[in-house]
């Protein structure tokens, strides 16, 4: 066990964890922030996506020992970002979710896309969202919601 000071959604959080513990499980089990989801554990589904210094990252394969002082943003904190807020409201407006389990990760990937590209094309969307699996296959509405959020932010 080791002690880590993590910067999560702008707050400093102290946690004790085995250094190999993926950030995902530190968020979920130590910090009780369960909005970030476990889907595969091998960075193949995107359900665990968070931002590290603004970069969309699969938290299921990043050990807590490698986080250091990077800024962690999770689904619980993304609403305080204007782009995050726009994406969340576009998601609600377009009635995107079904089971909803993957949507935290989808939203985190979409926010990262819109931070990099203000008017994403279908190809941009397929590239940025290409690793986020949705078994309900809400993909059509995800595309619509990303375009809607881009419109709102323009």
């Amino acid at each position, binding site marked *: *066990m080791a002690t880590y000071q993590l910067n999560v959604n702008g707050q400093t959080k102290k946690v004790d*964890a*085995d250094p*190999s*513990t*993926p950030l995902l*499980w530190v968020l*979920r*089990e*130590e910090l*009780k*922030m*369960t*909005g*970030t*989801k*476990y*889907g*595969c*554990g*091998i960075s*193949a*589904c995107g*359900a665990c996506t968070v931002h590290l210094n603004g970069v969309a990252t699969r938290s299921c394969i990043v050990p807590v020992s490698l986080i250091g002082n990077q800024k962690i943003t*999770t*689904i*619980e904190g993304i*609403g305080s970002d204007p782009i995050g807020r726009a994406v*969340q409201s576009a*998601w*609600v407006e377009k*009635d*995107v*979710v*079904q*089971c*909803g*389990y*993957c*949507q*935290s990760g989808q*939203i985190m990937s979409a926010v990262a896309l819109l931070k990099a590209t203000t008017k994403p094309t*279908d190809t941009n*969307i*397929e590239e940025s*969202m*290409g*690793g*986020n*699996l*949705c*078994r*309900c*296959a*809400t*993909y*059509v*509405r*995800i*595309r619509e919601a990303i375009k809607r959020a881009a419109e709102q932010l323009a």
Partner: protein
Amino acid sequence: MQAALKCETDRINRRSFLRVSSVAAGGLFVSLYLDLPVLAREATQGPPKVYPPDAFVHVRSDGKILITVNRLEFGQGVQTSLPMILADEMDANWSQIVSELAPAADVYKDPVFGIQMVGGSGSIAHSFTQYRELGAKTRAMLIAAAAERWKVSPDQCRTENSVVYGPGGKSARYAELAERAARQPVPEKVSLKNPSEFRLIGKKVPRLDSAAKCDGSQKFGLDLDLPGMKIAVVAHPPVFGGRVKSFDDKEARRLEGVKDIFEIPLVNGSGVAVVADRFWAAKQARDLLQIDWDLSGLELPDTSQLWTRYKELARTPGNVAVARGDDKAMSRIPVARRIVAEYDFPYLAHTPMEPLNATVRFEGNKAEAWVPSQFQTMDQMTIAQVLGLKPEQVTFHTEYAGGGFGRRAVIDSHVPREAATIAKRLRGTPIKLVWTREDDVRGGYYRPMHAHRVEIGIGGDGMPAAWRHVVVGQSLVAGTPFAVMMIKNGVDQTTVEGTSDTSYEIPNFHVSAHNPTVNVPVLWWRSVGHTHNAFVMETLIDELAARAKMDPIAYRRKLLKPEAKKLIAVLDLLDQQSAWRNSLPKGHAAGIACHECFGTGVACAVDVSIENSRPKIHRATIAVDCGLAVNPLTIESQFQGGIGFGLTQLMAGGAITFKDGRVVQRNFDGYTPPYIVDAPVTVDVHVVPSNEAPTGCGEPPVPVISPAVVNALAKLTGKRYRSLPLANV
């Protein structure tokens, strides 16, 4: 599943009871025998069930109206649609509605199936009238309370937006009347609205759970956190039915946070459970276990050997599902007008996004369980049985589920069973059992693999004159309480559904099936037997249409029986809505398919090109006849998503295979469902206007998409695709 469950219930004449019988699962377990035919018959034909409104509606003093949903919410949207139905008849203000999932209890059982469950696209179909009546009764009780307070006659009162209005400008909010209303007698009969009076039903009402699912606050089963809770994972045998011979846990026990490691019996064979403070410790400890497995006497499934066996079986007639017309008709058709087609379909995992889980706390004389469950009745009984309790001693909470697609409706309840088995040993400690994704991909309960062999004799008019069809695949229900209802003449009806009940008029029609036994647990996968049967039927019909040089929609229209009203309606609507088929760019082709299942008719047209040797689906147009459209927004979502789910079987990595008894794939790196790039770019959904009884929208989207896509590919490449998963084109 719905039709099959309903069938033959009359034949059975036994008292409804629970029978406990020993099974060979290590001699440690007994299996619950649930008399499903009797339960279903009692539900549909017994004295009318009384559903007390207070079990479903709670008008709170703060103005919120809590509506209890008798189903699991796992994406299909009943958490919104069922409250809409009730709130409409109740004249409730929609903005006040709060929806919650019901715990396991008799009153929440499916009014048709007689058990508490989600499956067979029955949520709206079976509970539409039930929820309307509940709403109307609640409204009548609120009116009675107002009339009593104002000393007027109830028929002098009317309701709107959670307010009762009386003579002389009197009005009272539902919240003010709630206490008095609860003391009113529940009316036995109520009149329901005319469809023209609906205020919510038929409107595009956004989901109630959207916001919570977009900010991370929605709790799913896996998110549960209880004081003192421990996490359990189980090491399962590498071959189904394997047993632990011995194991070495010295290394594993050294890990910080590991609490206990012990062998547990499974439904079939045994495994090793690891209990720890946290998931990561539990999983790491499991990885360190050295387990010596006893695999003696077990069949070691092997995909290539199974194909050989299945294809041989497909060349011999099986048990007869349908024998219509003249058995000798084929021999009179010239060989030049015959087609022989062989198809194969692999095992498919459901892989819902939320890995399987169940949480159980055992307290000696009672227990509590939290399960994202499609089968509450079975899961509660199984937990009770493992713990030596009666079902009513197990408080069973239905947790939100991250998808399911059938995977959380397991007859042997193996996941809650494991959780209960572990919790029994650690009395008083809540145990959250987590199946990792690897456990899920390798853990069985797959859509079975199937081989089909079809011989078609074509008449002089280009229409099929004789059809002989053999289907080979494991039964989903043999040896379970469902068998008595779903196996007829030795044929599991789910093996042939979608073929045996086809709406195409084929005069000489023979369908038979083999249900071989294989050491792989199998399970219904969204739309059940229709996944493969619709693929076979709709690709062959398309081939016949092409051979007859007819438009694929016109050919199907001509071949459909006149009574196939829903399919005719959706083909006509599709024809109108897919004018884009006539002006496609070079390198694109349109593919068509239609299918009716679970009472809903669906037709689909896709615009497909080939990119990187794979089909690229630019557009899908869908026409649906599901009776009265309760929430057109949900229907649109279910169809957009359902066709995406259906594409799983076309994916290059859409197969579970076996080598030497072991599953080859382990996670989404080897078993790859559709991602955004694989799904259609746009999907437009068109609903046939109807006031007929509503039918389901969860299962029916799935079957049409794969045949529609390969029918388009056939136009582009000139090849017919009969082997799934789809190889590069």
